[in-house]
Structures are given as structure tokens and as C-alpha cells.
């Protein structure tokens, strides 16, 4: 899985039939220090994430392995909302605080 921040939504009216009713979010990839890598993904949201949330998403075939995305053509699915994470024993980011490290 990868760490990412929800930075936008995608509205696509004309899409493959099985993609209907899926919420699509634009997520900016983060490295382990919480810095944006410059990469992004459009991901199906399986957990109800909101703008600004830090999330985890699964890629590839694993993205299909939820009740919501089973059998559907997605290769990225948000599967968790992150509360906090630490690296080398130090909290890097926390939803209840803010970025501890840049």
C-alpha cells in the first residue's frame, strides 16, 4: 500500500457501466517523511475519505478485493484512513496534531 493525501475528486459521467456509483478521488503520493513525491493516482474510495485526509491505497489486482470493487476495472482503491504514522520511532504525521516533520 502507499501513503497519499486526498487532494481532489473526479467526476466522470460517461464511464464503463460497472464504474457507476464508485467515488473517485485524486490522491497525491507521500513518501515516508510525509513529503509529496509529485506522483498521483485516481483511486476508488472504499472507506469514505474526505478532502485532505491522509489515506492508504492498494494498487493492482488487490484494488478489486473489496465488496465495492469486486469484478470492477479499478487498479487503485483507498482502503484505510490514516490516523498517524511513525518512522525511526518518531511520529511523522498525526491527524490530531499536524506534521511533526516537514
Amino acid at each position, binding site marked *: 500500500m502507499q501513503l497519499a493525501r486526498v487532494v481532489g475528486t473526479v467526476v466522470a459521467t460517461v464511464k464503463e457501466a460497472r464504474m457507476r456509483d464508485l467515488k473517485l478521488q485524486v490522491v497525491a503520493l507521500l513518501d515516508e517523511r510525509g513529503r509529496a513525491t509529485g506522483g498521483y493516482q485516481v483511486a476508488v474510495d*472504499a*472507506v469514505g475519505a474526505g478532502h485532505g485526509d491522509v489515506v492508504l491505497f*492498494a494498487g*493492482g489486482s488487490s484494488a478489486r478485493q473489496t465488496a465495492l470493487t469486486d469484478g470492477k476495472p479499478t487498479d487503485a482503491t483507498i482502503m484505510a484512513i490514516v490516523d498517524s504514522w511513525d518512522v525511526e520511532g518518531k511520529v511523522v504525521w498525526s491527524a490530531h496534531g499536524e506534521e511533526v516533520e516537514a
Partner: protein
Amino acid sequence: MRLGRVVGRVVATVRAADLDGEKLLVVQPLDSARRPMGATVVACDVAQSGPGDLVLWVGGREAALALPRTFVPVDATIVGHVEQAASAPAGS
């Protein structure tokens, strides 16, 4: 499967169904000489790993097969601890 070093832990309360209770760790992938290689990944863990551990992890859809509930959106799982890893230097 790849080698990696556990460098951190992720706390996430809101999760997709059937992921409750799964530990989430930040893993730095390593090359065959155990040098950091590429971006970190967040992996589930079935090997009781912790920060600092040298581990073996599996990526892709197969990562979910290591977990007790296999129909889950997981693309990386730590499946073992590495005690020893030997490889010949490139070109030898």
C-alpha cells in the same frame, strides 16, 4: 518476494471490511546487498515484525493470500524474518 527493512508503523482506525486487526508497517525495500532501493511501501504483517527487522515481503494480489481473510485490498505483506541473505556480487 523482496527483502525489506521495517522502518515505521501506521495507525489507521477507519479501514475497508475485514482489515480490522491487521498490523500496518512502513517497509523500505532493499536490494540484494541490503541497500535501500526505491520508495517505501506500507505492508501488512503476519510475522510479528517490528521496526528495525530485516524481512521478506510479498507484493501484488498474492500479498492478501498470506492473511487470515484473503479477500482484502492488500498489495504488500511481510511473510518472514530474514536471518541470513547471501548473494554473489554482480558480474561474478
